[in-house]
């Protein structure tokens, strides 16, 4: 009975996962399509995989997207986690106001946020470029990180931390060895969310980007008028493959390695 339930759950999860990948399969398929426009199947080719590496604009855009995404992710995860910890633990006089401030960036339509940031930057005479895009991305990522980390913290008790402090741990030690390990799934999920939001953002980036800071979404949206080139599909396919190889290597290889070595220390670390 129990195992049937678990198998059903597993099957359901796999169906949802498959749903997420339906369009991905199609886009990979169309990266081999001979036609320049993404409309109809007209024959197999590998040309796009060659030409994408000769397209300096695509490569520049990819480079910009990755660096902006990584910087925005790191900064917003650090700032967001710090804020979530403080908000969870301490009383603030303006708690309601602060919570609203945290939620507002998610509530305000992107176009309004983009335009208002553009107006702000031009009032302050900050030249538009990579810096302004990074600032804008951090501004909307912080809120997502705070909300996710807070969701984690709300389910935690204070007992462990209090115990650590009673045993004489410094605040830093308490954080490093007690708090952080407990909230790390939340931090990781927040970071993933921040990176995902940054790498796929168009509207806000559009308004605050200047010369030399064209990101991949900006480049792709610009191509829409003339038809998105299958080079983008080829590039996406390479990226997906790259991510898969890296994660699989990181997840499966250590497991194999561990099993072969029969590392007892690791086994003891397994929670259940």
């Amino acid at each position, binding site marked *: 009975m129990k195992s049937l339930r678990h198998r059903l759950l597993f099957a359901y999860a796999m169906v949802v996962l498959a749903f997420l990948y339906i369009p991905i399969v199609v886009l990979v398929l169309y990266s081999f399509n001979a036609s320049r426009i993404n409309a109809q199947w007209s024959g197999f080719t590998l040309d796009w995989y060659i030409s994408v590496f000769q397209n300096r604009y695509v490569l520049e855009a990819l480079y910009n997207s990755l660096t902006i995404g990584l910087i925005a992710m790191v900064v917003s995860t650090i700032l967001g986690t710090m804020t979530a910890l403080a908000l969870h633990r301490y009383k603030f006089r303006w708690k309601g106001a602060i919570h609203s401030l945290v939620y507002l960036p998610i509530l*305000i339509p992107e176009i309004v946020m983009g335009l208002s940031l553009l107006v*702000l930057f031009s009032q302050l005479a900050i030249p538009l470029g990579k810096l302004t895009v990074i600032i804008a991305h951090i501004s909307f990522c912080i809120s997502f990180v705070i909300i996710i980390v807070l969701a984690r913290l709300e389910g935690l008790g204070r007992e462990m931390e209090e115990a650590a402090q009673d045993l004489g741990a410094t605040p830093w030690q308490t954080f490093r060895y007690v708090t952080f390990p407990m909230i790390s799934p939340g931090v990781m999920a927040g970071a993933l969310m921040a990176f995902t939001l940054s790498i*796929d953002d168009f509207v806000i980036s559009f308004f605050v980007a200047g010369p030399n800071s064209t990101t991949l979404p900006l480049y792709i*949206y610009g191509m829409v008028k003339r038809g998105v080139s299958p080079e983008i599909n080829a590039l996406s396919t390479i990226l997906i493959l790259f991510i898969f190889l890296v994660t699989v290597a990181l997840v499966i290889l250590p497991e194999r390695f561990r099993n072969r070595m029969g590392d007892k220390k690791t086994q003891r670390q397994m929670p259940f």
Partner: protein
Amino acid sequence: MSRGRMLAYPAIAWLLFFFLAPLVIVLFMSFLQRGTYGQIIYQFTVDNYIRFFEPLYLQILGDTLFMALLTTIICFLLGYPIAYQIARLQRNWQTLMLLLVMVPFWINFLIRSYAWVIILRSQGMVNTFLLDLGLIEQPLNLLYNFGAVLLGMVYGHLPFMILPIYVSLEQLDRRMIEAAYDLGATPIKTFFYVTLPQTLPGIIAGSILVFVSSLGMFVIPDIMGGAKSALIGNLIQNQFLSARDWPFGSALSIMLAILSLILIFLYYKALQAQQGKEDSR
């Protein structure tokens, strides 16, 4: 103790400066007037807010709320089990699965949406397949309608639901579940009285993220819905990029934000009341 509070200051300062300051500009703009060529005239007016209450715009608001609500519910029904499944795995596999869930969303949003169009259009993969099997005689109209928009909305927002729920499921106290079983509770009862309440923070965070993001959505109705209907996001977009009526667009945005804040507040209160009832049982 007060030193710890300072942890929040950098992010708050950041948001005050790079978010609230520009937002004040928007608020200010919403009380101004549109000039003949779309420039802004510095003359105070509340007309933009009065205009919001015209039946035409209220209907759009209603349609948008309905769509956002439906999206949130479906995302919850799809997202909770997968989050549950991920949280049951070993740590390494959890990471792998989480990445698997997120990776599709690192691929450009437009490209993914066009892929859906390729699948669903009248000469698309689904229709061709069904026609070849002889199950249908005429291609089905799968695109450019309400269902297609809903599909796009759910697809685009699913990770917003999965991530927070995973985060709170992952810390589920399994001893409580075992205790419930020991006391003879059925699995369904255990789920509704133990698991669900414990993961409430994740559910709240997830549904707020999904609901609010779908309120402002405008690209999906255009691509999947054939731009045949308008949600409030499209309306706002049009004010800035086609009617060039920045003041009205600003007023619409402010109203949307206020409305969302109120809804979130009510949602929070309702859930807290619910939780309070359950705790006292």
